[in-house]
């Protein structure tokens, strides 16, 4: 250690101190050299120490797993408006449960029950943490986070104060203190008190370096208090657009675009708060004033409720009482927010607290038909306003209070859903369409909705009614009128939304909204909306209905297609458009459905080419005409011919008919692309010349395994319906067995086996052993598992697609079971294959090049 270095680094140190530093450096060099020496000393082994170390390692792993689970469950119950930052997840949910359930003796002994609420799981995890002897500051932190999410904001703030106090008293590291401080700031923001949150800024400058979430929360607090320069400095490092941005701030960003650079992040998904409700008092929102006002025709609004600071109350009452008629926000149909900009000299318009108001929110009080009868107003001295969902909940609470006062103007926010009359036959898949359509319209109190569409003979009929008169007989009397309007619509091109005459004397106004096909060429049906009592229909409801019709157009086709199949031969179809194959070729199907050009459908026998042809017929312009298979002499709208069964003369005859302008839509079924068929002598060049150069390829069933579970259920249902048997229930393991077979015979082979099982086990459960026995009995090859050495990426993708949770997330354990593997093997293969390969497998199915 040269003196010059010490002089350079510690010029002010005394000789005595330099001497001590030199000794320290010598000790550190010895420590460093000790690590470098290959044959260094070995610590005298101690059995006790070794066991303790192993145990410690295990505990640490367990603690990390519990931390991962707590993170996952708290994230799930944390409302979108919460400011609590849980940081990055330390471990994936599934991996954490695997460690706790299979590999650790310290964790909670059982997984969550199917309907166990997340709150209960969180409690069990916290108990397990305490039992496993984790550090007290660790337990305190997560327990405070859980209380923050599950309890009221005031309790959460107290909890964080206690946690901070005990972290300091217990000598916890500065990192723990910083995390507790971050929690405290978040809880104060959730109490709509940015000023007190910002007060921690001057007290904890060094803690911000240790905990980024503390810095970010303090930056928000500064911004909300108007200290924009401080906020800019604090929020500078937080530019990630994927970071979570609490809902009130995301909404502030929309209403104050100048701050969008400071409020970066993504609005959290999820339902509004499921936690304890906040009482509608102004101090719970950190507000100056909270009032509810009802309009009274030409008179000034009536004050229903006014919770204001003492010095503002009289002023606010005076302002409302003397307000001119036009002062009330008549056009209010959703939450309106106003923020005063620093450069604006005067108070905000309509601010009852005058120049003290920095931000203001107005929320409509909506009556049963959605008309605005009054409004709720909240004013604050800072920019932090509650999120819209919270404000709307308060408005609904006001409505409930009014109802208790026998106030006739406003009704309860969530009335009982109106009754539905459906005229489809029982078991008709189109019930699903009507249910979803009416569901999208909300409770419909005071309104009536009618769904009109053509029946199988093309005659317009009312198919379902929601709401309206109490008696079915009276409902039926309106059908003729609605049908007449549907005919008018079909005859009038360029419609969008037509005002209508009332369907009966009690209704005043209404609209008819058409369901048009995606190209806007055909009217498929109409939705008629009518108000039973007074008032015009709310614009929001009409907009919601129009959006629902647009969104449900594909469902109308799918349910209609299945209904047509049931009507034709009593067989339901497994037609799930979200499955991989159908979703991949949907654009091609849309493009070819309206065409009249002959199309080659390429695929192995039994792969579903005829079903695809039927779908194209159903979607196409010839849907009302006959669908004919073979050389039947009948005139057909659509004709399907298998190239394996028609000779050269017939093909030439067909080519001639096409050349002469035949109106029939022709589908040719082939087992290979056109050029191969031509080389084999199965397709004449004359006929090929008239065909669409881009055929549609239908992959074999083993490449569409994700369709198998639904297919099995539908096939079993068809057998039961046809033969009047009780429905058999396929267990998931039985479906997994069927899923992984090669099905070289295609759908007919699967249908035959499923039929055998459904007959043999009518009304009972079918397990994996029953499936194995059926294979043995037929001397069919049975695959216990798909090959795990160099597997096809497509198989992995289909396994994951088949076994997804209802919410869309992957269920890898179940996917591994379907593949016949253990979960670890699947994880390894997924890692090896990577996203590129998975993406490439998506190109395996698609139109075959000509």
């Amino acid at each position, binding site marked *: 250690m040269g003196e010059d*270095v010490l002089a350079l680094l510690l010029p002010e140190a005394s000789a005595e101190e330099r001497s001590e530093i030199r000794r320290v*450096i010598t000790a550190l060099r010895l420590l460093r050299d000790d690590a470098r020496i290959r044959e260094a000393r*070995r610590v005298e082994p101690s*059995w006790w120490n070794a066991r303790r170390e192993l145990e410690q390692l295990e505990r640490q792993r367990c603690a990390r797993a519990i931390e991962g689970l707590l993170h996952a469950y708290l994230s799930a119950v944390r409302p979108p408006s919460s400011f609590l930052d849980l940081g990055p997840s330390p471990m994936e949910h599934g991996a954490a449960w695997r460690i706790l359930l299979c590999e650790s003796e310290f964790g909670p002994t059982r997984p969550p029950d199917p309907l166990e609420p997340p709150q209960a799981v969180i409690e069990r995890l916290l108990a397990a943490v305490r039992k496993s002897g984790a550090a007290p500051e660790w337990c305190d932190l997560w327990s405070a986070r859980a209380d923050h999410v599950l309890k009221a904001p005031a309790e959460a703030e107290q909890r964080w104060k206690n946690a901070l106090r005990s972290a300091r008293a217990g000598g916890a590291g500065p990192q723990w203190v910083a995390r507790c401080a971050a929690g405290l700031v978040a809880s104060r923001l959730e109490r709509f008190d940015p000023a007190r949150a910002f007060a921690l800024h001057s007290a904890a400058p060094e803690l911000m370096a240790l905990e980024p979430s503390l810095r970010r929360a303090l930056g928000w607090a500064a911004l909300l208090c108007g200290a924009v320069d401080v906020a800019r400095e604090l929020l500078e490092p937080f530019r990630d657009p994927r970071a979570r941005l609490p809902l009130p701030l995301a909404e502030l960003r929309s209403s104050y675009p100048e701050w969008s650079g400071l409020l970066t992040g993504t609005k959290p998904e999820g339902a509004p708060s499921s936690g304890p409700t906040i009482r509608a008092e102004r101090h719970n929102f950190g507000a100056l004033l909270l009032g509810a006002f009802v309009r009274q025709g030409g008179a000034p609004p009536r004050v229903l409720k006014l919770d204001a600071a003492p010095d503002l109350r009289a002023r606010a009452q005076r302002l409302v009482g003397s307000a001119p008629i036009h002062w009330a926000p008549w056009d209010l149909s959703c939450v309106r927010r106003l923020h005063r900009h620093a450069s604006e000299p005067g108070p905000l318009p309509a601010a009852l607290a005058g120049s003290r108001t920095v931000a203001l929110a107005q929320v409509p009080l909506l009556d049963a038909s959605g008309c605005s009868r009054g409004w709720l107003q909240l004013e604050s001295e800072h920019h932090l306003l509650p999120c819209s969902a919270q404000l709307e909940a308060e408005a609904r609470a006001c409505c409930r209070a009014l109802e208790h006062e026998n106030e006739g103007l406003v009704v309860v926010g969530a009335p009982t859903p109106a009754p539905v009359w459906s005229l489809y036959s029982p078991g008709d898949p189109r019930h699903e369409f009507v249910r979803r359509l009416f569901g999208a319209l909300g409770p419909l109190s005071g309104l009536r909705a009618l769904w009109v569409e053509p029946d199988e003979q093309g005659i317009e009929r009312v198919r379902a009614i929601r709401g309206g008169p109490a008696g079915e007989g009276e409902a039926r009397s309106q059908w003729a009128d609605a049908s007449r309007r549907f005919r008018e619509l079909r005859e009038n091109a360029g419609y969008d939304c037509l005002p209508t005459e009332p369907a009966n004397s009690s209704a005043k106004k209404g609209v008819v909204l058409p369901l048009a096909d995606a190209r806007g060429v055909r009217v498929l049906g109409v939705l008629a909306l009518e108000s039973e009592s007074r008032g015009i229909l709310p614009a929001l409801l009409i907009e919601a209905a129009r959006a629902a019709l647009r969104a449900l157009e594909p469902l109308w086709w799918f349910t209609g297609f299945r209904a047509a199949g049931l009507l034709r031969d009593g067989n339901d179809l497994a037609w799930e458009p979200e499955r991989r194959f159908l979703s991949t070729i949907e654009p091609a199907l849309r493009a070819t459905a309206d065409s009249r050009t002959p199309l080659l459908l390429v695929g192995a026998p039994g792969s579903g080419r005829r079903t695809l042809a039927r779908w194209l017929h159903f979607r196409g312009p010839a849907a009302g005409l006959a669908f004919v298979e073979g050389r039947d002499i009948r005139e057909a709208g659509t004709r399907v011919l298998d190239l394996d069964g028609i000779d050269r003369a017939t093909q030439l005859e067909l080519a001639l008919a096409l050349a002469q302008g035949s109106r029939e839509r022709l589908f040719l079924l082939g087992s290979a692309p056109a050029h191969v068929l031509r080389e084999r002598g199965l397709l004449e060049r004359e006929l090929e010349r008239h065909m669409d150069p881009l055929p549609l390829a239908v992959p074999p069933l083993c490449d569409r395994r994700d369709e198998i579970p639904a297919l099995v259920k539908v096939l079993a249902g068809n057998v039961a319906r046809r033969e009047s048997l009780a429905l058999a229930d396929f267990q998931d393991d039985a479906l997994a067995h069927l899923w992984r077979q090669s099905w070289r015979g295609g759908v007919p082979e699967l249908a035959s086996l499923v039929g055998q099982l459904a007959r043999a086990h009518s009304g009972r459960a079918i397990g994996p052993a029953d499936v194995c026995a059926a294979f043995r009995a037929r001397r069919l090859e049975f695959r216990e598992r798909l090959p795990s050495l160099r597997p096809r990426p497509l198989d992995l993708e289909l396994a994951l697609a088949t076994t997804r949770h209802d919410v869309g997330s992957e269920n890898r354990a179940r996917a591994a079971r379907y593949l016949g593997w253990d979960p670890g093997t699947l994880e390894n293969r997924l890692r090896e294959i990577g996203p590129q390969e998975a993406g490439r497998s998506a190109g395996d199915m698609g139109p075959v090049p000509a």
Partner: protein
Amino acid sequence: MLARIVPEDPLGLRPLVAARLGEQALLCDAEGVLLSAQALCALQASTWRGEPELATWLESQVADALLVAIGEESAAPGGGLVEALRCFAEPLALDPCRLAAACARFNRLPFEQREAFYALVLDADGADQCARARGLSLSELARRARAGLQLFRRAPAVAHGHLRTASAS
């Protein structure tokens, strides 16, 4: 127990530990890290399916063990590092506990400060040469190394003591 079961170093982890400590400019008890790494290898062996290569896999275990060791020492200074320092520090009339605590804080410093301290103070490579090799000015290099050296001079101040008044308001 591991030291008894594995008296030698059949996996050749020791040089990996030493190399990692040097690369990362860390002050740790190499023996403790070695034992942790061996334990991790034993625990994780069943998950290794031949890929990545053994050397890479062992390096990742050593890296994990090092993180565990730094985390442990940071959370509760003492234990293995104090024992390792006892035989070096006591003959030099130094308190091993205090030195271990300072080492734990040193390991939490940014890499550039640790590395500057290692080169300038422990390896004594020469200030000018060190600065030139890193493309830094002498004063910047000294600033970085001083951040490390300060930790061994005095006990750190309690950084969050004054938070009490603010949070209670």
